[in-house]
C-alpha cells in the first residue's frame, strides 16, 4: 500500500504543479476574462490607430501586452518585462543560427527596433521602412556609392536581401546567404559561352569573384572595381598566369615579388637598392600582402584602406590609436567644449595616413620613414624651428645617450603616448628633468 502511494504521488504532484504553472503563465496578472489588451487600450488609446496598420506583431494583435510589458512595475524602461536588448529573443530565440559565420551587429546587440516596430507597421515583418531604404539608413556609404555608379548590379537594385540575410548567416561572412561563389553562380552560370569568353577561357567557376567585381556596382564595365590592374583591363591574364589550357591555368608564372618585377622593375630596383625593405614584400605572398592583383576599390590597387591594411599586421599601433581616440573624446567631454591646445593623438596616424611618414616599400633609414631624417620628416608639417628654442639638430648631443642627437623623437612619440603633446612622460617637467637633472625635485 505504501509502495503504491509512492508510485502515484510524485507524478500527480508534478502534473498538478505543471498545470498550476501553465495556468499562471497564461494569465500571470490574473486579468479579468476578456480584459487583456482591451484594458490597456482604455488608457493607451493612441494605440488604436497603430492597430489599424497592415502588419501587427502577433502578441499585440492578440492583446497580450503583458507578454512584453509588466502592467505594475518593471526594472526596465517602458515597463518592459526584460532588458530591451533581450526581450525579443524570449520568443525569437532562433533568429540567429548556432555558430553563425556572420551576424548583423544590430542583431547581436539586440537592437531589433532599429529595423522593426515592436507593435505594428504597414510593412511586412513590421519593418520600419521597405526594401533598401531601411538598410541604407545605416549603410550610407553603400547607399551613396550605389546611387552614383554607372553600372549597377540588378540584385542590389531589387533589394539587399537578395544576397544578404538581415539577421545572420550560417554559411558566409558579410551576412551573405551563401558562399560568395555559390551565390554568384546561382545567377551567372559559368558554362555559358559569354561567361567563358569574358573570362578569357580561364576556369574561374571556383575563383573569388570579388577579387575583380564590385557586387554593389561600379563605374567600370562588368562591374569591375574602379581601379583595375592594366593586364586585367587589357584581358591579358596570361601575362601573370599560365595559359588557360595549361594543366594548372590559374597558377602564376613566378612566385612572390618576382612575378611583379617583370613589369614593375624600375620600382623594384629602387626598392631593393634601399638599406631597409619592408619585409612582407619579400615573403611568399610578396606584393599581394598589400595590393590586389586584379582590381580594387582603392587607389594603387591597395587591399583596403591604409589604416586597416597596415593595422592588419601592426595591430599594436592600431589598437593604441583606438585607445587614444577614445581618451581624446573622453577628455573633450570632460573639458565641456573648452578647446585643448594640444592633442593626444597624431592626426596622420589617427586618419590612417601611414604613408605621410613611412615609405611602405623601402627606406634607407629606420622605421621606413620617407625622408632622410626625422627632423626633415616632421618639418614637412611642423615648423619646428618656430616650435621651440630648445637646441635641436645633428650637432646637439642627447645628454641621456652619447650616441644620439636631439631631434623631435627625443621628446615626442609620433604614434602617441596617452599624454598631451605626445610626450613619453605625464608632465612636461617629468620630460625636461630627464636631461636637466639639476631641476629634479
Amino acid at each position, binding site marked *: 500500500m505504501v509502495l503504491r502511494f509512492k508510485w502515484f504521488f510524485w507524478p500527480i504532484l508534478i502534473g498538478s504543479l505543471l498545470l498550476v504553472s501553465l495556468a499562471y503563465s497564461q494569465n500571470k496578472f490574473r486579468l479579468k476574462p476578456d480584459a487583456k489588451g482591451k484594458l490597456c487600450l482604455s488608457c493607451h488609446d493612441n494605440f488604436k490607430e497603430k492597430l489599424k496598420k497592415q502588419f501587427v506583431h502577433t502578441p499585440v494583435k492578440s492583446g497580450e501586452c503583458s507578454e512584453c510589458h509588466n502592467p505594475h512595475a518593471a526594472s526596465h524602461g517602458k515597463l518592459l518585462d526584460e532588458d530591451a536588448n533581450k526581450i525579443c529573443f524570449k520568443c525569437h530565440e532562433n533568429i540567429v543560427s548556432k555558430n553563425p559565420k556572420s551576424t548583423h551587429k544590430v542583431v547581436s546587440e539586440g537592437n531589433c527596433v532599429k529595423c522593426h516596430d515592436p507593435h505594428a507597421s504597414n510593412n511586412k515583418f513590421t519593418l520600419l521602412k521597405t526594401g533598401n531604404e531601411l538598410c541604407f539608413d545605416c549603410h550610407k556609404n553603400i547607399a551613396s556609392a550605389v546611387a552614383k555608379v554607372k553600372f549597377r548590379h540588378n540584385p542590389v537594385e531589387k533589394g539587399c536581401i537578395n544576397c544578404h540575410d538581415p539577421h545572420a548567416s550560417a554559411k558566409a561572412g558579410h551576412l551573405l546567404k551563401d558562399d560568395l561563389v555559390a551565390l554568384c553562380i546561382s545567377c551567372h552560370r559559368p558554362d555559358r559561352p559569354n561567361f567563358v569568353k569574358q573570362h578569357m577561357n580561364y576556369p574561374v567557376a571556383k575563383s573569388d569573384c570579388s577579387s575583380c567585381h564590385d557586387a554593389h556596382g561600379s563605374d567600370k564595365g562588368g562591374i569591375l572595381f574602379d581601379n583595375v590592374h592594366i593586364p586585367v583591363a587589357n584581358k591579358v591574364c596570361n601575362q601573370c598566369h599560365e595559359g588557360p589550357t595549361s594543366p594548372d591555368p590559374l597558377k602564376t608564372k613566378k612566385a612572390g615579388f618576382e612575378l611583379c618585377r617583370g613589369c614593375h622593375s624600375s620600382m623594384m630596383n629602387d626598392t631593393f637598392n634601399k638599406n631597409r625593405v619592408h619585409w612582407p614584400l619579400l615573403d*611568399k605572398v610578396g606584393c599581394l600582402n598589400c595590393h590586389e592583383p586584379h582590381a580594387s576599390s582603392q587607389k594603387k590597387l591597395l587591399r583596403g584602406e591604409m589604416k586597416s591594411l597596415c593595422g592588419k599586421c601592426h595591430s599594436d599601433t592600431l589598437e593604441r590609436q583606438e585607445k587614444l581616440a577614445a581618451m581624446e573624446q573622453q577628455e573633450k567631454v570632460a573639458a565641456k567644449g573648452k578647446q585643448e591646445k594640444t592633442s593626444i593623438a597624431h592626426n596622420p596616424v589617427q586618419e590612417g595616413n601611414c604613408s605621410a611618414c613611412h615609405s611602405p616599400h623601402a627606406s634607407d633609414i629606420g622605421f621606413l620613414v620617407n625622408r632622410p631624417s626625422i627632423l626633415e620628416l616632421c618639418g614637412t608639417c611642423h615648423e619646428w624651428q618656430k616650435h621651440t628654442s630648445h637646441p635641436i639638430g645633428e650637432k646637439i648631443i642627447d645628454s641621456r*645617450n652619447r650616441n644620439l642627437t636631439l631631434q623631435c623623437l627625443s621628446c615626442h612619440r609620433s604614434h602617441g603616448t596617452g599624454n598631451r603633446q605626445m610626450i613619453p612622460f605625464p608632465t612636461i617637467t617629468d620630460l625636461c628633468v630627464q636631461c636637466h637633472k639639476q631641476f629634479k625635485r
Partner: protein
Amino acid sequence: MIEAFKILLFISLLFFPISAFSAGGVKFKHIQSVYFDEKGIGLKEPEGVACNEKTLLIVGDTANDRLLLYNFQERSLKAGMEIKIPQLSNPIRVQINSRGEIFALDGKKRRIIRLSPEGTFKSYVDAEGVPSPSAFVPRSFKIDVDDHIYILDIFSGRVLVLNPEGKYQRQIPFPKEYGFFSDLAVDSRGNLLLIDCIKAMVFFAGKDSNSFSPLTKSLREYLNFPTGITTDRRGTIYIVDENGSGIVMLSQDGSFLGRQLSMGWNEGLLYYPTQVCINEKGEVFIADRGNSRIQIFMVVQ
C-alpha cells in the same frame, strides 16, 4: 590531520628551491652599455648581437655597415675592433660558431656571409644543394651547438637546415596558419622555435620533426611586436618585444615567466631593441637599436 599537514609542509619545502630559482623570479641587472669602437667611433642603430661561451661579443653595427669585435671578461669590455668589408652592408643579424667563425646577415643584399675569427671574408652561405624552389630570402638565421646553420627563409616559407659547411641538409615548412615570422631560435637540444610578430605566437618543431606546431597561444597580452627570439642553456625562451621595448621570458613549455625592461633612453632602458644573446654565465647582450648602443645585463634571481 596533523600528519597530513606535516606531509604538505614537507612537500612545500621540497619544492621551495625550484620555485624560488625558476625564471619567474629572474631580473635583469644592468652592467654596462657599449657606445663606441676602439677608435671612439659611435655605434649607429646596431641590430645584431652575438656572444659565445668564452668572451667574444660581436656587434652588427647596422647603420655604419660594419661589425665590431669585443671581449667581455669579468665585467670588463675590451677592444671593439672594426670589421668593414665590401661584401657586407647593413648587418642585421650576427652569429658565431664553435670555431669562432663569424656569420652576418646583410640586410640590404639579404645574403649571409661567413668570416674568419679574425674578420676576413671567407664565403657566402648560399645553401648549396637547396631543392626547388631554389630561391630563398633569409630574414634571420641561427647556428646550433654543432655548427648547423638554420635559415629563416621567408620567400619560400620554410626553415633551411645546412651543415656546418653551408650545404643543404633538410627543410621544415612553415605551419599553415601564421602571420609573419621575424626570427628563429634553436635550443641546446636542437629544437626549433619561430616567433610570429603579427600573431605574437611561438611555434615549435622538435629536433628531427618536419613540421611546426604552436607552442603558445597569442601572447599579445605581453608582447606588442616581437621580432627576436633566443634561448639559454636551460631552455628558457627570451623574446625581444621591439615595439614594446622589453624582453619577455617563457618556460620551455611556452608558459609566461615574466617581462623585463621598458622603453626609455637612460641606461638600463631600451628603445626598439632587435636581437638578444645570452651566454652560459647569464650575461645578456641586447642590440638596443633605437638607442644606438649594446646593453649588457646580468640575469639575477
